[in-house]
Every structure is written in structure tokens, then in C-alpha cells.
């Protein structure tokens, strides 16, 4: 059955240049940033104005300038306490990530395990952490350990729930396609389920990393001798209100930076996911 070789039908699409953000979207995102900077500036300005206008004492409500001055003057103190809190956050989050991913894998793979364990995972979130935190002091002592546990308890939940959804949200046709290629269950899990779940995992991690900062503060609030949460707690009764505010500023800067770091990591690790999403958004607009 000899036959002239036909050229494959190629509608000659443009070369597969990576889809970069075009001028249009870049301008739009610049405008978005400028907008939020303006809002922040307006709030700070109003705050400063109100404090000056009504002559509010600094122990009651310090002006932004006073908080700034305190941040500069006591920078060594802040740095020392921030480092303690950061350690608690990162270690606790690390434990949550490891446990969360393993648990999610088991829950998604074994229905029996799911029925046995998933209810407890959900129930664990209904017990107020503020009740558990003091008990942890009795059980594991006063140091870093109880804070790490509190952080992990708060952070593991969004990781588990999102990853389970991701592992389960696999296209059944895709699994069948893999099976007809002769793939084993393990191969389907590694080559299809895990990559499908990664964007979900990252969504969970973004929530978890911000919760981690809150968890560390709760842990310190209940009983600690260092950390930014501890610093706010001891500063208020001493009427060092600016110091307390300074600690809060650093805490939220820490939360935002960690969130951005995760978002950046996601972009680097899942380039296909972001370009695909952006492409869809462009098609819609």
C-alpha cells in the first residue's frame, strides 16, 4: 500500500513563544498596585491627623510616626523577638506540611482510612485552639515545642482539605487513558494525581502559612518568654503601646512576606498552571 507521504495538516500557528503578560495586563496590575498604595497612604495620613488633632496621648493610641520611631529605636529588641516567632512559624508550618500531605495522600487513596480518620481531622478544628494551648504547656513544657504544636494544629487543616480535594479531583477519563496505556495504580498516582493536586496544595499552603503566624502568636500569648506575641502581651500593661503596635506591624509584614514567598514558589514550580490560567483570563476579557 505505497502512498505518497502527505504533509501533516498544520494550520501554521505562531511559534510556541511563552505567553508573557502583555502590555495591557501589566498596565492594569500597575494601576492596581498604585491604588492599594494610595489607600494605605490615606489611612496612615488620616490616623496621623486624628491623633494630632485630638491630641490623643501616645499610651492610648500612638501616631504612625511614633510607631515608626519605636521600630527604629528598639530595632535590636524587635529583631530578637521576631527571630523567635519566625522559628516557631517555620517549624510549625513544616510539621503541618509534612503531616498534612501524608495524611491527604492516605485519605485520598484508602477509603477505609478516610472513613476512620477524616472525621477526626475535621473535629480537631472544632476544638478552640485557645483551650488546647494552655494544656500543651502542662504536657510539653514552656519552650518552643508547645508553640510549634499550636502552629501545626492550625496550619495542617487547610493543607489536608485542599490536597484531598486535589487528589480526588482527577479527571476520570484521564485515569482511564493511563490505564489503557498499561499504567499501574502507583503510576497513575504519581504521574496524574499528584500533579493535579499541586495547585490545590499550594492554595492550602497559602492559607496555612498566614494561619501559622496567628498560631505562633496564640502560642506565645498563652505562655512564653520571647517572641512578638509575647512582646505585645507584656508591652500593653506597661503602657508601651507604640511597642505593641510595632510588634503587630512586624507580624503582619512577616505574614505578607511568607505569603508572597509561597506565591512566588508556586509560579516557579508550576509554570504551566499560571500561564494556562492567564491565557484563559485573556480569552475571557
Amino acid at each position, binding site marked *: 500500500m505505497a502512498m505518497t507521504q502527505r504533509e501533516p495538516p498544520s494550520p501554521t500557528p505562531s511559534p510556541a513563544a511563552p505567553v508573557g503578560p502583555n502590555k495591557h495586563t501589566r498596565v492594569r496590575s500597575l494601576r492596581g498596585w498604585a491604588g492599594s498604595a494610595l489607600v494605605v497612604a490615606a489611612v496612615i495620613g488620616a490616623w496621623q491627623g486624628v491623633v494630632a488633632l485630638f491630641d490623643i496621648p501616645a499610651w492610648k493610641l500612638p501616631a504612625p510616626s511614633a510607631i515608626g520611631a519605636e521600630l527604629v529605636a528598639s530595632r535590636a529588641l524587635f529583631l530578637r523577638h521576631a527571630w523567635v516567632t519566625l522559628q516557631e512559624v517555620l517549624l510549625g508550618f513544616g510539621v503541618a506540611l509534612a503531616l498534612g500531605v501524608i495524611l491527604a495522600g492516605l485519605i485520598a487513596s484508602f477509603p477505609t482510612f478516610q472513613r476512620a480518620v477524616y472525621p477526626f481531622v475535621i473535629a480537631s478544628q472544632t476544638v478552640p485552639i485557645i483551650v488546647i494551648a494552655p494544656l500543651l504547656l502542662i504536657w510539653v513544657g514552656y519552650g518552643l515545642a508547645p508553640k510549634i504544636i499550636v502552629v501545626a494544629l492550625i496550619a495542617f487543616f487547610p493543607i489536608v482539605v485542599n490536597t484531598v480535594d486535589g487528589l480526588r479531583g482527577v479527571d476520570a477519563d484521564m485515569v482511564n487513558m493511563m490505564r489503557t496505556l498499561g499504567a499501574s495504580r502507583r503510576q497513575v498516582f504519581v504521574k496524574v494525581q499528584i500533579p493535579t493536586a499541586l495547585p490545590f496544595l499550594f492554595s492550602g499552603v497559602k492559607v496555612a502559612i498566614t494561619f501559622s503566624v496567628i498560631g505562633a502568636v496564640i502560642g506565645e500569648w498563652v505562655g512564653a518568654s520571647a517572641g512578638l506575641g509575647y512582646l505585645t502581651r507584656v508591652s500593653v500593661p506597661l503602657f508601651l503601646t507604640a511597642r505593641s503596635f510595632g510588634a503587630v506591624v512586624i507580624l503582619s509584614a512577616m505574614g505578607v512576606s511568607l505569603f508572597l514567598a509561597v506565591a512566588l514558589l508556586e509560579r516557579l514550580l508550576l509554570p*504551566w498552571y499560571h500561564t494556562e490560567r492567564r491565557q484563559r483570563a485573556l480569552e475571557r476579557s
Partner: protein
Amino acid sequence: MGYVVEPQTHTQPMLRVAGISKDFVSGGQVLSVLNDVDFEAGRGEFVSIIGPSGCGKSTLLNIIAGLDDPSQGSVEIDGSGLHRLGRVAYMHQKDLLLPWRTVLDNAILGLEVQGVPRSRARERALALTERFGLKGFEHAYPFSLSGGMRQRVAFLRTILSERDVILLDEPFGALDALTRGHMQEWLLDLWSSFGKTIVLVTHDVDEAVFVSDRIYVFTARPGRVKTVVPVTLPRPRGYEMVTQAPFIALKAELLASLREESVRAQDAPWQ
């Protein structure tokens, strides 16, 4: 009919489906989807299945591929009835490309699953990208490709899995008419050089006549083989044939047969 039926040259069919029935039970009711279907495809033969919607064509392909088991009857691939899963290549209407893999890495999925080292698998895929119109796009992600190109990547993945039998479930259903025409010609060209047995499920009578050696027409649910029509048009076939008398005569015969079934399907109360 007026055409001479070519004698079957093959001795043992590559694919033999004997007396297959399939019932689905839902809510205490039994829905019979396939009823005593006999079906054969010879080595290197191109066979199509057409029928009204819901006649169990896709169920039949799932059974042949090993994704589902028949309620009754047997499937033999190259004389063996065991372990169908992984012995038949199956291409879906959706391209089912993995969005996190490049064109090349999607294409080698079958080889990878079989344990062929990635670098060797990639070499083999690279050797074929030109044939598949994918040259220059080896490292592109699926989202940046057109529908036709994505479907060709899926084809390359199917061909590279190296099965003797390829099942195609409306592979061009999602493409526009012009692209579909090109793809059909291109598919014929590939088939003639790779020598695979192809079973194509389609709604499109023109497509079935254009590519097939034989066409199975299925009845409305429960699906049975209504008639088998040999297509004796000479090969290689070109698109100019579509407007010529022998092609149109065959098409008319198939359409009449199909129309009977779709009328019957509409009249029948839905169980």
C-alpha cells in the same frame, strides 16, 4: 450495491468480539446497552462503527480496551482473551493531554509507563514530530496549541504506545470541518505506513466512508449490529472522492440505514 466485496485476506482476526451483551443496573432497573454483538477486525484493517446516539458504541470500545467487562460474551485480541488493559491503544474524543507536560513528554507517556528510559523515549518521539506536524512545538505546553495540534499529540502518544489495535472514539468530533478533513487524510496516510488495526467510532457518515475498509452499522439501544457494509473504494483515497458517484451511493445506503434506526430510537419509549 454494485461493488465487488474483496475477499478477506487475513486468516485470524486481530480483534474478535463474540456475542457481547452489556447491561447496566441503576435504581433497580436494568438497562440493556449492547445485545449480542459480534464484531471483527482483521490485521491492518480499518473498521468503523456508526449508529444513533446511545447505541453503546463507546461502551463497546470500553469493553474492548478492558476498562469495562461485558455481561456476556468474549473479546479476543490476537487470539488471546486475557488482560486486555494495556494491550489496545485507546484514543478518546478529548485529547486528555496532561497540562503540566510538554508536547514531547505527553507523547512518551505510554513508553514511560512501560519502563522505557525517558531519554530514549524522547528520541523516538522526536523522530516522529515532523510526521505529526509538531516540529518546533516539542517543548510547548498543551494550552498553547490549537485543537488540531493537541489531537495530533494525542495521536502521537497513541502510536508510540505501540499496540497493534487502535481504538478511536470520535477523535475529530471536536474539530471544525476543515481541520477534520485534513486530519482524516492525514490519519489514512499514517495508517497506511504504520499498518495498525484501527476501530473508529464516529457519528459522521462521510468520515466513515472515507477512511474505512468496512463499516458496522449499529441499531438503536440496545445496540446490535444491524448491517456490515464493505467499502470498496480504491486506495489511496483523496478528498475529491467525496463528491463522486460511488462515494455518494455508499453514503446514501448508510444514511438510509441510520435514519431507520434514529426514527426507531425516537419512537421507542425510554426505558
